[in-house]
């Protein structure tokens, strides 16, 4: 996020004179880009809402009021409420470990943390079936103890945790690496314990990156389809998440499927909005910081040109002697 924010900053500052394309080339390029984006971004988005309301608002709200859809909404929320905090705690621990310490095997650990990103969602679901399914390693033991994981909520949570595993860590690690350990060391020299340093110094300074990671993690957790589809068992009203509910309704009532999908699309739009807001916030902060330091260093220089050789630092020590006296 920080790099995105920084580059935004560059753009506003730089002049483009001398390396510009002719106006018609720009027009063609912009037109082609807008055409591509319109076809691949705007059209699918518009279609979701158009189809959702294709049978009127009444049908739309009736579709959302369906008890099975309601239960899918609450299951989706429950899964996210469990999965996101788990990965948040992990992300913070992993980022602390990787950003603050140097140890053997760090590169390997980083790669392993990224691993779930490169595993197909269907395979992500499958591995839990292999472990907890009836024919899986723990299947018999679980059945004997009457514990259901696969085709039940715990399986859905596990699969969701797997696919959203790296999100927070990935956002925090580069951020904490860029910040270094100076602030933490300063806190230690002032007598702070490890936990005090973490809560009062580290956490506040990565707050926005953390929120950013949580938003992305949450979006994926609420919208995951493939992995959840494998472990859910598709029991209507019990183990259907919103995504699964959309799939099921698609074969029964397309307008209702789109109505349900519109809830998820809305979630995506909110996610995008928050993400953009956070990035701009970051850029604005950077800009403010730059502007402020410019102004203040000017002010400092004007202090040094005071008559009688008096300087800002000297006036400080004048204050100091008065305080001491």
């Amino acid at each position, binding site marked *: 996020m920080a790099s995105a924010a920084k580059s935004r900053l560059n753009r506003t500052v730089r002049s483009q004179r*001398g390396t510009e394309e002719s106006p018609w080339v720009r027009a063609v390029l912009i037109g082609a880009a807008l055409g591509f984006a319109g076809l691949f971004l705007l059209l*699918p988005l518009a279609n979701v809402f158009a189809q959702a309301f294709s049978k009127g608002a009444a049908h739309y709200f009736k579709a959302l009021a369906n008890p099975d859809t309601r239960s899918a909404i609450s299951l989706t929320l429950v899964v996210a409420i469990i999965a996101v905090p788990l990965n948040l705690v992990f992300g913070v621990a992993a980022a602390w470990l990787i950003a*603050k310490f140097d140890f053997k095997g760090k590169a390997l650990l980083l790669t392993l943390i990224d691993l779930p990103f490169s595993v197909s969602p269907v*395979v992500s679901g499958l591995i839990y079936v*292999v472990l907890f399914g009836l024919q899986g390693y723990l299947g018999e033991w679980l059945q004997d103890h009457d514990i259901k994981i696969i085709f039940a909520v715990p399986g859905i949570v596990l699969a969701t945790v797997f696919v959203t595993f790296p999100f927070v860590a990935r956002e925090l690690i580069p951020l904490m690496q860029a910040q270094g350990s100076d602030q933490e060391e300063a806190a*230690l020299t002032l007598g702070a314990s*490890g936990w005090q340093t973490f809560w009062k110094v580290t956490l506040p300074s990565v707050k926005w990156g953390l929120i950013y990671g949580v938003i992305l993690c949450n979006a994926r957790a609420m919208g995951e389809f493939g992995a959840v589809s494998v472990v859910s068992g598709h029991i209507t009203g019990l183990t259907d998440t919103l995504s699964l509910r959309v799939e099921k309704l698609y074969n029964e009532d397309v307008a209702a499927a789109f109505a349900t999908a519109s809830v998820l699309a809305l979630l995506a739009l909110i996610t995008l909005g928050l993400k953009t807001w956070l990035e701009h916030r970051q850029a604005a902060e950077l800009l403010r910081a730059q502007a402020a330091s410019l102004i203040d260093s000017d002010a400092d220089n004007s202090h040094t040109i005071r008559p009688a050789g008096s300087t800002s630092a000297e006036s400080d020590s004048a204050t100091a002697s008065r305080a001491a006296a």
Partner: protein
Amino acid sequence: MAFKKPSPLPGFGLSLGYTVFYLSLIVLIPLGALFCRVVTHMGFAEFWKLATTDRAIHSYQLTFGASLIAAAINAVFGTLLAWVLTRYEFPGRRLLDALVDFPFALPTAVAGLTLADLFSRQGWLGRYLVPAHIEVAYTPLGVVIALTFIGMPFIVRTLQPVLENLEREVEEASATLGAGRLRTFVSVILPTIMPALITGFALSFARAIGEYGSVVFIAGNKPGKSEITPLLIFLRLEEYDYTGAMAIAVVMLLFSFVLLIGINLIERWASRFQN
């Protein structure tokens, strides 16, 4: 060298312990279990037979082929989008910039649903394409379109920072030496952004290989025609053919690992050009 460089900061043991514990619990043990199961429950001959059935082979071809085509389309249009977003000021630029992440934020089931609908006989696009005998729904073309949709942000977002940090002076130097804009783009800019472009291409390709949700709606379920590998695994599971599903899953996983290592190497290589 010691295992860990000394540091005055506390919490190494705790954070290492928790990270490794959680990583093992959620990722390593389940993935290991799959490999274990395949190794212990089937011989190599059986694994090979299950992993290379005609249906599986065809699904690999479709998955890899469509993913490659989609990544290539994105390489072209993603570069265009990134260029336009970083270089030009036009109404709606910020909105477009935010929307680039839409395929990433949109749940895949919703993407699949709306794409399938757009290209269906009554859909906004299908109503023009189908009479012109361009069939998208339930064909490999549909697979390519879905994969292009979900892969696009990867290329744009990888290229954008690189384009933004391009040194203007280099382009200006090229101009003062008499090169036109196109020549400057091809000989000066393109080589500079190439590492990022390759990284973005690889990320987009990797994402497409494993994609499931957005494809199943539009691709339908036609064995040997529009059936991607993740769908085949899913169907094998539905049929309670666990060994069949696992064999194909292992093939996919191995390929994912190779890609992951490849992307890491590309990124390491690319970072050499950054500074």
